């Protein structure tokens, strides 16, 4: 695995936390599950980023992979909301 395969995922979580702190209101469990589920489906549809060949980069097999930054961003947003969101 090359470091470049996992760096976008880490950055997406950091950016997600940053912008998640600006979310307000109550996010129910149902909404949380919905958002994470849609992210996983979206990540599958977008596919793995170019030149990622490891499971950490979202690569499963040829033609099948996940855009892990999409999932990471959603998780980051929810973490940011939980940390500082009003």
């Amino acid at each position: 695995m090359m470091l470049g395969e996992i760096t976008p995922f880490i950055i997406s979580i950091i950016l997600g936390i940053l912008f998640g702190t600006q979310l307000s209101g109550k996010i129910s469990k149902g909404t949380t599950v919905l958002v994470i589920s849609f992210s996983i489906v979206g990540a599958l549809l977008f596919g793995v980023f170019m030149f990622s060949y490891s499971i950490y980069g979202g690569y499963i097999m040829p033609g099948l992979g996940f855009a892990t930054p999409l999932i990471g961003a959603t998780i980051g947003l929810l973490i940011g909301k939980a940390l500082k969101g009003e």
Partner: protein
Amino acid sequence: MDPSELRGKRGIIAVIALLIICVGLMSSLEKLAGNVSPGISRIYNILAYLVAPNNIATWVYDWRGFDTLIETAVIYVGAVASALVIGRGVVQMKHYSEEAPATSPPLEYRTESLTVILKYLGLPAAILLLSYGIMVVTASSTSGGGGFQCGVIMTSAYLLAAIFYGKDNPIKFGKRFLIGIGAVGLGGYTLLGLPGFLTSGYWQYNVGADIWSLVSPTLHSIFGDPFRLSLYLQEGVFYSTPGIIPLINIAEAFNVVGAIGLIYFAFLYGWSEPPEDQEKGGK
């Protein structure tokens, strides 16, 4: 969600519309398979190094880069004009200093005006748009752009949530946040050129990629290794890194979020300086 809300003509139309959208979206995505050529444009790779001493200069400061930079400048001018027109509190125009800032009727949260789909999927859609924007900018390690698009997508999420929820906007990009993130983006965009200038003499020389071998291995490693990828090509296996390009894209994304976000903020909530620095729709 209460299933009883789906009763009636309105609910039936909403469900049918959602089904049509789902089918259309899935069909479009399925047709995209094999027809998209992701990554860096071949033209850039073939011509870039012939145009300027280093690739990053060609990318960032060619017609496309200038286009982006000037677009951002235009947006900032728009933000200033919005603040001038909509609210005069911060701008402190002497002629109007004794007049009250222009006010608009408050945006009300009226759930009865929202369809069932918008009521329950508005917030998830806004959050997913934010996630999508972040995904776009993180993909810039294998492509030339992403920053401007990310900014536009994220501010679209802000606008979408504002349209749905009015003053109860769940995405509370306040003035301080937008100004701060715009400033960080603009400053970061500029300062990322400093390492290259100090070590090679070329502003924004890509110290991470270091195509001309001008910088120390340590600096090369610091900026290059985090984004290094292995490229399995017909000619063999190569190891390549975009260097500082992803960082520049993130800075550009911050810049655009700040610029466009300020315009939306000024138009939606007005621009004034409350006594206790309490912002509408923000901190």
